[in-house]
């Protein structure tokens, strides 16, 4: 269970700039199995919201609670067992195989020398099978197609075995078929693995089709709004984008 309480998201005060609040969240909670799309115009703060949850950026005020624990009280390793992240684009690394990439997700669980135990190897193998990556397991991540690489990165996040998975515009660089494939995969992951999956996206139609919850940043009232199924496309567009 993930809870936002009286959250203020934005940029903290710095030497040359004032504090800037992008939006606030009164109270919102998410349960395992939720597949949540974060939508909003460019510059409304989707990435800032993710960065604030991921800890790259401070939360201006309010709290994030996970299973009743205050998020900011957890240490780095504990957080990495709760939260996994997939960036919108990963270019691949020369000589890094898909297997090794997925295995990186086990890092929070391995010892100092990063040795995979039997259990770790089983988890990695299971993820590779689940995502249909067996054919590519030994392939260099540099030589994959964008779609394959994105799925391999999702595999890394899955191997991390975290309760929450955050994906920043996972479909931005994919073609139509791969977009549907990735979103279908994420929907299954949320339901089968009982994870909370967040994506940010500009693909409203696909979000409406695959996600069971939409949260939208309203730049007029500076609030985070939520919509629950069934979604009414025109309502959402009128509130957020007009």
């Amino acid at each position, binding site marked *: 269970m993930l809870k936002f309480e009286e959250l203020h998201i934005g940029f903290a005060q710095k030497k040359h700039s004032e504090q800037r609040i992008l939006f606030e969240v009164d109270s919102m909670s998410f349960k395992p199995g939720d597949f949540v799309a974060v939508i909003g115009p460019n510059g409304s703060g989707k990435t800032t919201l993710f960065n604030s949850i991921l800890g790259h950026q401070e939360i201006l005020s309010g709290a994030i609670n996970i299973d009743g624990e205050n998020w900011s009280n957890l240490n*780095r*390793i504990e957080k990495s067992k709760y939260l996994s992240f997939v*960036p919108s684009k990963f270019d691949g690394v020369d*000589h*890094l195989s898909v297997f*090794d990439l997925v295995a990186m997700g*086990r*890092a929070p669980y391995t010892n100092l*020398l*990063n040795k995979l135990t039997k259990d770790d190897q089983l988890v990695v193998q299971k993820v590779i099978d689940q995502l249909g990556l067996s054919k590519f397991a030994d392939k260099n991540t540099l030589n994959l197609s964008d779609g394959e690489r994105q799925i391999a990165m999702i595999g890394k996040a899955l191997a991390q075995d975290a309760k929450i998975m955050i994906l920043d515009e996972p479909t931005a660089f994919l073609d139509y078929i791969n977009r549907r494939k990735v979103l279908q995969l994420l929907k299954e992951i949320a339901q089968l693995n009982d994870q909370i999956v967040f994506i940010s996206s500009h693909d409203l139609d696909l979000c409406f089709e695959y996600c069971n919850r939409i949260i939208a940043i309203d730049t007029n009232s500076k609030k985070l709004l939520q919509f629950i199924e069934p979604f009414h496309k025109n309502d959402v567009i009128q509130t957020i984008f007009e």
Partner: protein
Amino acid sequence: MNILNKKYWKLSLLLLALLLGLIIIDLTLGSFHVGFLDIFNGIFNYDSTSTAELTVRVFRFPRVITAVLAGGALSVAGLLMQTLFQNPLAGPYVLGINSGSSLLVAISTMSSFYIFGSDFGIVTAAIIGALGAGLFILFCSVFVKNKVSLLLVGIMFGSFAGALVSVLQAYADPNNLKTFMLWSFGSLQGVEFNQLGVLAFVITLGAVLSIVLVKPLNLLLLGEKSASLLGINVKTIRFLIILATSILTGVVTAFCGPIAFVGLVVPNMIKMIYKTTNHYHLLVGSLIGGAMLIVVCDIAMQLLAPFVSLPLNALTALIGAPVVMWIIMKKF
């Protein structure tokens, strides 16, 4: 990721066997040929009345072991830099880490105070200089996101430190100046038998620190943000990587002078041969590969000695510069 991966161990063993062969060849070379038995006796069963054994123990053994240690240390330092800055052209020499060492060694050998006169003093000065340069580059890397720009900053820093050294040279005592100039050509002859212990100890320290950093190094390949989300404290790790690099580069620079290109070339070769990103194997490979390169350089120097006396730095640059150009054409 599995550290028990047999394929890589076999490769490492093969390289190690090659290295041992090269070491033995190198030990026989010098102003006159020495047989294998004399080499064995000179090292393990030393009799000071035999000229051959004396030569092996006093000149050749320290020379060859220094080559092994220096090559290994510089290559590991290069690997660490390349991963930290995610740049195949990074290395202790290009980023100005050597120059930092040189500057402090110049100050200590050429200043009339001579506070750092002892071995310990020069090693400490060189490590502090390397650490200073390393932290400076690290600081710049926070602002300079472009890979090429960071290299330029390193090169500029090197020039700046070089200019300061020139100023020092202008005012230096001629004897001190000569010592410094000889040092700056790079040499494997400067280390005596009883100093080998110090060199080996400090390099082991740096190597152990690097092995402990294997996991963060592997994860840094995905970028610093991703690494931090996998439980890595990036700030601490960055400092530790710079510290390990400084120890390794500093001690080698103190004893052998600023040796160029080894740290840049060897890790790239090893990555091509091993085809892995697991730093556990890359570290072992770089350690052995670096040793091989310098031993080969030394063999070349010994063979050419009757005709022409090459400084070590000229040889490493002759091998290194073309490799760098090749990497630039391939990856940039």
